């Protein structure tokens, strides 16, 4: 590209005739490898650029916003883009979420160029994968999986002086193994793929497949169940996403007291649980300010650049905050706590690993991952979904074999009140949501009566 992201920001701001202007430029690059049946199947290398212009017109309560985004923008495309945003603002009429644009100055790193990734990030993973294919082939296992690394660098500029830059690296590795009738999965997210130990993950996968070599029949029912951090992430990310203050205020969310506002201040769990987001949390760092390319029920384009810090959504079991824009904060008379790109759950005093929780189970189940999770009853946040790639029977604290998969019907909010044991919080890659939301930290949880509604024959 002959024009830099910073130049795009400045030129769009200069071209604008709107009362207020925001420009977001995102440069991204990604590389991926995919495999099945012990061999690579597809691969890809992708570079993208997107430019989003937000124009605001009018003053006071009559401010309107227009949002137009384009990829592959060259110097000649900027003026049409800015004019289109201005036109959209005039067409749209006053915006309900209108707020003064966030004031600010240029951040020190704004001048830095975008960072790129390349296939060289597979330097360690690819040979390790080749070795894993070799071992699998020799031992009669089949491996399937995907590894990806991407870097997104976003530049935000505003007519109020903001110049912010955020660089978001994201890597993920997931691998499914099959052997005989057994199926198992391992997955990790990391900012740097060098932190993913493919050989160790393959060993974990192989151990799980070994557990699966003995199968035990158990019926559907409620079981004492250990959920590893990835499964807790599958459920708690949904609980976090559902925390929009507007829906709660309108009486249409599990965080509503229908007809009477939100449940903020209510105790949702009698346990010492804290559900938090923190842009600075080690290993799951994310943007410390709002980057919104459209307004919706949980974000507002007017809030672009608004600082987003550590927020405790649940504190000691009590609902303390909801996802807010400045507009909904006014509606609900609560603090403006914007959405943050990570989420964590901490249980006060909890220590140990998934294995430590398993050791305490007399007879119960150990899960690997959850899948196809969808809301069934939005009032109680009842979710349905399935176990996937390995459910293990635990007897006297030890895994004794694999059982069938199940369909579950459970509410994350109810689980937060019912669990009997928890471990230490650790980075967790959600099988269900990780591709959209890779940054989570969760403890393993033991739930005494997890509802396995029916048997799934899937293996």
């Amino acid at each position: 590209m002959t024009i830099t992201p910073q130049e795009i920001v400045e030129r769009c701001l200069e071209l604008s005739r709107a009362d207020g202007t925001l420009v977001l430029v995102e440069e991204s690059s990604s590389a991926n490898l995919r495999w099945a049946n012990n061999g690579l199947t597809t691969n890809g290398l992708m570079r993208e650029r997107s430019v989003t212009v937000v124009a605001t017109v009018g003053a006071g309560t009559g401010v309107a916003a227009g949002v137009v985004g384009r990829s592959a923008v060259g110097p000649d495309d900027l003026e049409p883009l800015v004019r289109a945003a201005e036109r959209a603002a005039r067409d749209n009429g006053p915006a309900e979420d209108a707020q003064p644009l966030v004031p600010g100055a240029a951040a020190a790193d704004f001048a830095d160029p975008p960072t790129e990734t390349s296939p060289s990030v597979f330097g360690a993973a690819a040979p390790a994968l080749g070795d894993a294919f070799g071992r699998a082939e020799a031992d009669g296992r089949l491996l399937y999986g995907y590894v990806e690394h991407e870097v997104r660098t976003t530049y935000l500029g505003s007519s109020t002086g903001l110049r912010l830059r955020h660089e978001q690296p994201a890597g993920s590795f997931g691998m499914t193994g099959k052997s005989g009738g057994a199926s198992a999965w391992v997955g990790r997210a990391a900012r740097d793929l060098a932190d993913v130990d493919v050989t160790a993950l393959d060993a974990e996968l192989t151990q799980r497949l070994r557990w699966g070599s003995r199968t035990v029949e158990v019926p559907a029912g409620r079981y004492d169940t250990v959920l590893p951090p990835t499964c807790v992430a599958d459920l708690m990310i949904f609980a976090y996403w559902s925390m929009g203050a507007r829906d709660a205020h309108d009486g249409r969310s599990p965080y509503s007291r229908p007809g009477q506002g939100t449940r903020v201040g209510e105790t949702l769990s009698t346990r010492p649980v804290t559900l938090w987001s923190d842009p600075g949390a080690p290993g799951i760092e994310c943007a410390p300010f709002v980057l919104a390319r459209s307004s919706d029920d949980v974000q507002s384009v007017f809030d672009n650049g608004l600082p987003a810090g550590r927020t405790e959504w649940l504190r000691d079991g009590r609902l303390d905050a909801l996802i807010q824009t400045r507009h909904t904060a006014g509606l609900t008379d609560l603090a403006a706590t914007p959405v943050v790109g990570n989420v964590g759950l901490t249980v006060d005093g909890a220590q140990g690993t998934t294995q430590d929780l398993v050791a305490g189970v007399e007879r119960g189940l150990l899960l690997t991952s959850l899948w196809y999770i969808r809301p069934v009853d939005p009032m109680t946040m009842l979710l349905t979904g399935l176990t996937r790639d390995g459910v293990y029977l635990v007897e006297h604290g030890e895994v004794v074999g694999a059982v069938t998969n199940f369909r579950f019907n459970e509410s994350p909010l109810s689980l937060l009140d019912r669990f009997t044991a928890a471990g230490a919080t650790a980075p967790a890659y959600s099988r269900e949501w990780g591709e959209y939301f890779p940054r989570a930290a969760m403890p393993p949880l033991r739930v005494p009566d997890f509802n396995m509604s029916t048997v799934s024959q899937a293996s």
Partner: protein
Amino acid sequence: MPQDIDEAFLALPLRPLADAALQRARDLGAEHAAFRLERIRSQHLTLRDARLEGSSDGEVVGLSVRVLHQGTWGFAAGVELTAEAAARVAEEAVALAGIARPLARTRVELADEPVHADVTWVSEYAVNPFEVPDADKVALLADYSARVLGQDAVEHVSARLSQVLECTFYADTAGTVTTQQRVRLEPELEAVAVDAEAGTFETMRTLAAPVARGWEYVTGEDGTVGWAASLDELGPLLAERLAAPSFEAGRYDLVIDPTNLWLTIHESVGHATELDRALGYEANYAGTSFATLDRLGTLEYGSGVMHVTGDRTTPHGLASVGYDHEGVAAQSWDIVRDGVLVGYQLDRAMAHANADALGVTRSNGCAFADSPGHVPVQRMANVSLQPAPDGPDTAGLIERVEDGLYIVGDKSWSIDMQRYNFQFTGQRAYRIRHGRLEGQVKDFAYQATTTDFWGSMEAVGGPATYVLGGTFFCGKAEPGQAAPVSHGAPSALFRGISVLNTAEEGGR
């Protein structure tokens, strides 16, 4: 009269870039290469209580090169529209094939396809939604919203409109050159009722499906959706739902409306008959399939009245197109006939590698990428359950039920990784007693195993009951891709299906 392909798209340097990329791929020794340049315009509008909540107008333009080099795929994509950049993307694709080769297990070869030299295709629509002023769109949605908001029982209303204009130029080293344009949109309104006293809320959504049509679908001018009636029923339906009894769990006969059944077809037949899933390519992500290739021709998928087709030719179908992203012409074929599995959805590599087992010599044209930066993978055709030529109307099916449910509109959905166990709810369900509809019930979900469910299908309705449903967001592949797809279905009668009480499931 077909519409013309957008002039601004045709003004892009399509052929020079393709020539540069394909020539570089040839020079570097690729045995096959395909160039794709795509521009996807999209606009999303959301209104909350008849006021604009958010609007976004996006356009993605990019090019990609996919090469087959010494039997290994390589794929690269970029956004710079110059001949130098296109050639560089071709080099990157060849280089990536080189990295992948030591880890590839099989040599890829493609099923033959006739050369389609310089062909164009445009989907059927009257008014391009991107030529309608935004103010008119917002005004119509606000008008629809206000109409709903004014009804008793309705506390809030959300309106959403998604619109897409997709232009694709494809050229490969065999000489196929296609230029295509598709338009699609999805209008949706959802009303919310809140019962402050009981501390509960309920929602009810319009049933108009996403379709490959123009703005005339949203205004109702094409006669497809009766918007006035669709909007006016939401309030009364919600009031009835708030007062409806909870449904007792058990086994019941179900009459399922096409507005609900399309999604069950999508999940339990559409995905299960994707050959890449059956071969394990999706094992780490979307999952596999119980309908494995060794069962082709013998698997009893359902009862004898089950006839399921796959096609890319249905007018207004979201998966309808002239040619796929491997240059294969659109076709239609049987997937389940007389209840037996007889076909799969294919791409060229799978069609070649499994030609004997499949009994085919050609792909049926199911290779697509969802955006210029993504690699084509096998994607779902319009997979549809065919009506019985002399079948009854929906009332005729309901008459045959002593005690059961009539389920309308899709809502919650979930199915396992091998497409056996599923659970669906609906927008609403009515109790059937002695062949007649009684009022709505709540807290219902039906749960079954795919082949048991389709095996219990006693009858399908006639052509008059047939409706095209669909989605913009069929998810698959890594990196994740979302594809639009339609599913036609008649009303159908199922015997003895397990229905859960969701309040009990949640421990209430």
